[in-house]
């Protein structure tokens, strides 16, 4: 029998925890790696999409005849080419992919063409005549909730309230979480702080625009190459939208140039497939950066009320938050995750959160790294900071006093198992960063954050080659070095060198369903499947050795990369390495492989504490980030460099969100900054080195103790920076981004005693 997975804490790893070069590294530093826009096909057409210039308009007619007559145009599609799908979950996606009776936001797709060249396609777009009836629009969440607001969907009745409203509104749903009695809790408090916060919508800002190459034959079979976080999701969604069977559509994931949640749905893929089917030729469709900003999924913007009460001794007696998130033109803002995570860092007797999912005339939001959580944490952790100041307690001590720990009933319900929040707080307390002195106009902020992490459907195959090397097929795109982690875990489990394992991302025809690369699930779930597949292969390897030695399989153990007799009674055979057994596999029963198909559960929740120092220029409101340290629980860091990378990347995105990134809409409802010039993501000179402290509190749900790490790192930074800026400027900031005009105004108002 193979060795059983040891308790993670006690296990001594040989490879896990080391930092080898990633297996796809050379491809990515030489330009050989193929991303979404890097594929071509013989006879390929170029497609472009015509988009609504209006925030809200009835589409009275679309005349494509002049475009169709243009030589070189091979197909034109509009709403008439997309029947509403049977699957309920695809209806909004269908409407988002191609506008129907109304265009619901600036950038909403209205028609698409495929032509022999980009210039011909451009000219064809100019020849499509769309008649719009412009309607009143709304882009702000609070405005959209007002009774007289323009209504986007005449059949939208708020779900989750009783009785069901009779009147249409822009509130898609109400959510509620919590326990205890907050009203009573507030009466027990000595100090209560109540504030309202606003955050702007931000975009994931991946550097690679969406791109795909679609080919559908007259036999109805299709191939699709695209950059996505989940090609199985793409296959199922596209098949549903185009009325295809999933087996008829094979999707291959290209290398992916960033996603952060933004590539967990479809935008252009169904359009390219529809064009290809109509034209009978392969169609390439690549978004411009302008289209990425206007017509993919940014995250929600929000407006949140927070009320927290404490006793003088620092104990929180009650906490309440009302969160209003607009998620663009269709239902589905991540407000429920905001409401669930808002107070997850604290051990609370009385807690209540209410969330409103609101629609507005903006592009439909897509997931963005811990969707919904950073916005909520910004509001809650700001009030926590203010309370700590009011009761004259160190903000880390105040958090430690109220911190969630093993056995705490979480604010969203379940009781926590072993978790690492206290460890991150303790670690940050003793860190040199916390003890370093600050200069004039400088401030230090801390904040905590929480994310669930998911598992989900996962399927991998591990094939052992005749030469003793291993090929691992997984179904999740490698978005940040996951191939390296998979190779490490497979090699660790099999006891072979890291270099002997190659991990490939298989297409949708090669493996069973794999959920999207989201929820920080890949290292956890695909890692678990990899370990199980390796264990399955080890069973077979031991069986083969047993056959060769003519002893019972139970008498063979797998140790250190070799099959060995289990003990004295099993005989004295020379141990056989994986390569030895693989070399004679053909003669002992055929190829050796291990598989794992499972719905992975047991993803451990994860916590982080961030600490940041900033300096505010009191004359211009400019913020300089001076020092940044991330303390986060990784469960077990498989490849520590890429764990650090996730910590650093999340912090950097948080810095952008906190200081300068925002979707700016004009009075006309059009997006004003649909480009990297005025949508200001941090550049190299905006940031210091970002220090990281990896804590390892093993997740009992994973054989190596892994917890997801990708998302938690973006939860604390908005609040940590807000707390630092508020300290440095001497004014509490409650609105993001904390752009220079906003900060300067607050400083001047304070100076003038406004």
């Amino acid at each position, binding site marked *: 029998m193979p060795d059983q997975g040891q308790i993670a804490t006690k296990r001594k790893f040989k490879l896990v925890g080391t*930092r080898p*070069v*990633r297996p*796809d*590294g*050379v491809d*990515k*530093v*030489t*330009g*050989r*790696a*193929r*991303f979404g*826009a*890097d594929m*071509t096909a013989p006879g390929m057409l170029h497609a472009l999409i015509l988009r609504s210039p209006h925030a809200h308009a009835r589409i009275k007619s679309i005349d494509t005849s002049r475009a169709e007559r243009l030589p070189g145009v091979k197909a034109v599609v509009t709403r008439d080419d997309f029947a509403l799908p049977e699957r309920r979950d695809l209806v909004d996606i269908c409407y988002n992919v191609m506008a129907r009776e109304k265009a619901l936001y600036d950038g909403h797709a209205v028609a698409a063409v495929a032509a022999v060249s980009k*210039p011909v396609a451009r000219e064809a777009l100019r020849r499509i005549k769309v008649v719009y009836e412009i309607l009143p629009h709304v882009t702000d969440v609070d405005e959209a909730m007002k009774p007289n607001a323009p209504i986007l969907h005449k059949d939208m009745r708020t779900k989750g309230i009783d009785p069901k409203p009779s009147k249409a509104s822009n509130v898609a749903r109400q959510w509620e979480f919590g326990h205890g009695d907050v009203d009573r809790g507030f009466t027990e408090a000595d100090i209560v702080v109540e504030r309202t916060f606003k955050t702007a919508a931000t975009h*994931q*800002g*991946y*550097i*690679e*625009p969406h791109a795909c190459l679609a080919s559908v034959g007259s036999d109805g079979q299709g191939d699709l190459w695209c950059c996505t976080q989940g090609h199985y999701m793409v296959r199922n969604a596209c098949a549903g939208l185009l009325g295809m069977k999933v087996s008829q559509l094979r999707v291959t994931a290209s*290398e*992916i*140039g*960033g*996603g*952060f949640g933004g590539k967990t749905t479809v935008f252009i893929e169904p359009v390219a497939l529809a064009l290809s089917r109509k034209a009978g030729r392969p169609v390439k469709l*690549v978004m*411009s*950066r302008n289209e990425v900003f206007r017509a993919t999924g940014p995250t929600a913007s929000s407006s949140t009320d927070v009320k927290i009460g404490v006793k003088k001794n620092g104990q929180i007696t009650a906490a309440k938050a009302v969160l209003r998130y607009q998620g663009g033109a269709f239902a589905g803002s991540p407000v429920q995750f905001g409401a669930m995570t808002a107070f997850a860092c604290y051990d609370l007797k009385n807690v209540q959160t209410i969330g409103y999912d609101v629609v507005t005339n903006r592009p439909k939001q897509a997931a963005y790294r811990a969707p919904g959580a950073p916005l909520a944490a910004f509001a809650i952790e700001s009030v926590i900071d203010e309370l700590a100041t009011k009761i004259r307690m160190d903000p880390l001590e105040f958090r430690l006093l109220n911190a969630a720990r093993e056995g705490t009933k979480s604010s969203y319900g379940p009781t926590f198992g072993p978790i690492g929040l206290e460890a991150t707080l303790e670690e940050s307390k003793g860190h040199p960063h916390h003890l370093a002195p600050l200069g004039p106009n400088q401030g230090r902020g801390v904040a905590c954050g929480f994310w669930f992490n998911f598992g989900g459907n996962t399927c991998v195959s591990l094939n052992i080659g005749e030469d003793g090397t291993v090929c691992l097929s997984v179904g999740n795109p490698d*978005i*940040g*070095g996951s191939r390296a982690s998979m190779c490490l875990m497979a090699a660790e489990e099999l006891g072979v060198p890291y270099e002997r394992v190659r991990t490939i991302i298989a297409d949708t025809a090669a493996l069973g369903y794999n959920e999207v690369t989201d929820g920080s699930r890949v290292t956890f779930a695909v890692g678990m499947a990899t370990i199980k597949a390796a264990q399955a292969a080890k069973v077979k390897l031991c069986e083969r050795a047993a056959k060769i030695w003519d002893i019972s399989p139970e008498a063979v153990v797998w140790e250190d990369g070799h099959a060995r007799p289990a003990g004295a009674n099993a005989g004295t055979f020379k141990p056989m390495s994986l390569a030895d057994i693989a070399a004679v596999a053909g003669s002992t029963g055929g190829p050796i492989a291990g598989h794992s198909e499972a719905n992975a559960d047991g993803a451990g929740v994860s916590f982080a504490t961030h600490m940041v120092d900033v300096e505010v220029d009191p004359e211009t409101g400019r913020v300089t980030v001076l020092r940044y340290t991330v303390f986060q629980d990784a469960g077990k860091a498989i*490849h520590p*460099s*890429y764990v*650090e*990378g996730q910590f*650093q*990347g999340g*912090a*950097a*995105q948080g810095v952008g969100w906190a200081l300068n990134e925002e979707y700016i809409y004009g009075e006309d409802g059009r997006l004003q900054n649909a*480009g*990297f*010039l005025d949508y200001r*993501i*941090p*550049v*190299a*000179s905006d*940031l210091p*080195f*970002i220090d990281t402290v990896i804590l390892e509190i093993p997740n009992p749900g994973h054989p190596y103790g892994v917890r997801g790490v990708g998302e938690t790192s973006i939860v604390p930074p908005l609040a940590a920076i807000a707390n630092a800026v508020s300290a440095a400027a001497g004014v509490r900031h409650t609105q993001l981004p904390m752009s220079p005009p906003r900060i300067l105004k607050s400083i001047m108002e304070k100076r003038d005693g406004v």
Partner: protein
Amino acid sequence: MSQIPVTTTINGDATEFLCEADETLLDVLRDRLELSGTKEGCGTGDCGACSVMLDGRLVCSCLVLGAEAEGREVETIEGMAEGDTLHPLQKKFLEHAALQCGVCTPGFLIAAKALLETNLDPTETEVRYWLAGNLCRCTGYDKIVRAVLDTAAEMRSA
């Protein structure tokens, strides 16, 4: 209007191509010459993913017309390694895990190489400002800056 014939040198190789007058060097590299290692992130010079060297100067190839390459020398990511020997920067980027998704990486490598060709002892601040035109959304730049500084140190001592 017929297409413009252009004779140029790309990664040391004499190259000829035809292009439209309004076609960018980036489009020529990617679509006509199949050198797709140079990436398009924005098409407006704001992200640096399409960085190439043009007559020894670092430029965004999305802001250069293909026709302008006539008689000039272009260097792209495909020409950075010598055979199977990686450039020291390429090695250090791998050692330091200075990439996650890798789509900005070719642009960063070209830009960093340009820096080290003029300044082999840059400060952290100099590296950060030199690379400010190259956007990376994954790494927070930490490991990229470290990789560049480490390469410079190694090249100085070599």
